[in-house]
């Protein structure tokens, strides 16, 4: 009998092609997602060494970071952005790999597109030259971001050189209160363990609160595993997962489907499996959270105040808080609900799915965005956009004063025209509040979609639980 294993152990074991004496492994990669920003130099590397793409069918290309979210049919105005997108298209053609072009309804943020197409599947290994590849762990696939040299390595060998990470269990028990969401769970975890807390680990999320989340919510949680420093996040697949994949374009069909589901059922961690670290959290007493600083670990309850550096003894941490507050233009001890915003951004691979847009539409229906706020909703993919429009959500949003955009990364990282101006403050559903992330001098507060929508209406942060 083999020792009990975690889901990470199982997927890892099933993909080892070769192991060296020092433990370094060659890991087989089932799926490779490619976007325009981190791939040109990888394809160039292949060309220079006369190599090819080993398994074109295991590779899917889509442009998302640079694409405009307005007037897309006119093409991309910025010459550098245009060149990057055209380069991806040309590379895909040259190397015989599928490319979803900008006007294709299936186009969108790479981490939303993969699952929608059934390209992502439980039990598979998935990589992409993008740190938020951790999103796909929501389906019980081992998924993580890689650098461009590794993109080239995967393109030409369909493998990755890896050492195994440690196992961390994050047990989230209890039932989430109303208006407290998957986003608040993951922000709470990062607040608790810190942005380096998961370094060297793969995090597995378990417990009642995780099981009760929708697939979309699970994606939000796994998405930000990287903000906790983890290599990947994982949630064991269950009936919800199988239901999600049934009938997707690239999902297994017929007898293969039954065989696949039978295999997927063997993936959850065994009773008694070993974890190197266990973190516990009770979801039932979580408030809606907001970040106040320039690191995703700078989380605080909406009922709280901006922290005071005076209360911090560690010199390096104190300096970090002072630097953050100066950048964010915030005074210590200000109640979070008194902080006014200029912009609201709803979208990204963290919160750009249909469920997120439904929640926002429900909350803003019949209300108006505050006069001094400019708010936008950017669906995560063309399919999400079409679904939202079919449900009439776009009308509700537009009526309330939101901009309704075309799909892409947009102001999550502001590589296209969607950016904050110097000093502008934004309630954002994305995943990073780093200095300059949403535009030079821009100030980002990470929140859930409902909290962003409520702030857009009120003109300042509000506790969505009392928002009537």
């Amino acid at each position, binding site marked *: 009998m083999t020792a009990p294993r975690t889901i990470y152990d199982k997927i890892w074991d099933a993909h080892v*092609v*070769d192991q*060296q004496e*020092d433990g370094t492994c*060659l890991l*087989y990669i*089932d799926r490779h997602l490619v976007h325009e*920003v*981190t791939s*040109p*130099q990888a394809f160039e590397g292949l060309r220079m060494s006369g*190599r090819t793409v080993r*398994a074109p069918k295991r590779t899917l290309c889509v442009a998302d*970071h640079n694409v405009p979210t307005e007037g897309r049919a006119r093409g991309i105005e910025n010459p*550098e952005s245009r*060149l*990057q997108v055209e*380069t991806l298209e040309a590379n895909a053609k040259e190397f015989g790999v599928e490319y979803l072009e900008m006007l294709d309804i299936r186009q969108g943020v790479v981490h939303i597109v993969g699952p929608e197409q059934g390209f992502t*599947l439980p039990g*598979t290994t998935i990589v992409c*030259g993008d*740190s938020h590849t951790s999103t796909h762990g929501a389906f019980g696939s081992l998924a*993580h971001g*890689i*650098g*461009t*040299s*590794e993109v*080239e*390595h995967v393109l*030409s*060998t*369909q*493998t990755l*050189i890896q050492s195994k*990470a440690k196992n961390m269990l994050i047990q989230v028990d209890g039932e989430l209160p109303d208006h407290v969401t998957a986003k608040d769970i993951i922000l709470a975890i990062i607040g608790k363990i810190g*942005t*380096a807390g998961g*370094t*060297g680990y793969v995090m597995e999320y378990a417990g009642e609160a995780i099981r009760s989340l929708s697939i979309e919510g699970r994606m939000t949680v796994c998405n930000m595993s990287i903000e906790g*420093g*983890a290599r990947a996040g994982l949630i064991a697949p269950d009936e919800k997962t199988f239901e999600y994949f049934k009938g997707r374009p690239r*999902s297994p069909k017929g007898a293969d*489907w039954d*065989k*696949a589901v039978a*295999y997927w059922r063997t993936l959850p961690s065994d009773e008694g499996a070993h974890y190197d670290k266990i973190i516990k959290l009770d979801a039932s007493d979580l408030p809606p959270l907001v970040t106040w600083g320039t690191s995703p670990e700078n989380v605080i309850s909406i009922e709280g105040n901006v922290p005071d550096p005076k209360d911090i003894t560690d010199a*390096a941490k104190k*300096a*970090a808080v002072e630097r953050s507050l100066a950048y964010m233009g915030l005074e210590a001890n200000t109640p979070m609900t008194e902080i006014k915003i200029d912009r609201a951004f709803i979208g990204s691979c963290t919160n750009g799915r249909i469920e997120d847009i439904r929640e926002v539409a429900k909350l803003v229906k019949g209300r108006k965005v505050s006069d001094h706020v400019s708010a936008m909703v950017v669906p995560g993919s063309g399919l999400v956009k079409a679904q939202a429009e079919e449900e009439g959500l776009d009308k509700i949003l537009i009526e309330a004063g939101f901009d309704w955009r075309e799909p892409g990364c947009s102001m999550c*990282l*502001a*590589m296209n025209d969607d950016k904050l101006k*110097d000093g502008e403050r934004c309630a954002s559903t994305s995943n*990073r509040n*780093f*200095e*300059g*992330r949403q535009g*030079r001098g821009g100030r980002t507060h990470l929140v859930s979609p409902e909290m962003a929508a409520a702030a857009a209406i009120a003109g300042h942060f509000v506790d969505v639980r009392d928002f009537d």
Partner: protein
Amino acid sequence: MDKFEKVDGVAAPLPILNIDTDMIIPKQFLKTIKRTGLGVNLFDEMRYTKDGAEIPEFVLNQPAYRNAQILVAGDNFGCGSSREHAPWALADFGIKVIISTSFADIFYNNCFKNGILPIALPQADVDKLMEDAERGANATVSVDLVSQEIHGPDGGVIKFEVDAFRKHCLLEGLDDVGLTLQKEASINAFEEKLAVSQPWA
């Protein structure tokens, strides 16, 4: 890739926690389709004003540190985006060694692929090297990968850990893809097995 053996150089102090890859190379420079030329934009928003003028206080703008080859930085260096543009920019500037108490996983990997040695040390050692670095050009630090030792300006020696395989690749300047392709037979065998056991995968 060039072989890495030993670096004798000036170490620049960057005592900031959680230096993320957006700080190292902001997104406006990710639109390139080349690997080179990013050094001038390393730490761009900390290094230049909006009009492109140098900010004299920033460490790499100070005369003593303009040719720094070593960075000593706060905890969790390289967190955030997977962009390899970060190590490309560091390498292009001339940085060969980064010392911190910890590194983010993807960034750590990316360094080795670009001939940069990231060294994680206990807090006390990083504090000592940070002090040395603050002394500027008069205090060069020497990093020897073969013996896995850092020699400070006052003769102190600090040992460091590095994974044996990664050390070998750095020392020899080896290309990972070439190495892996030597194992093609194993990859073929794996794929044949997979086609039978999980035809959908």
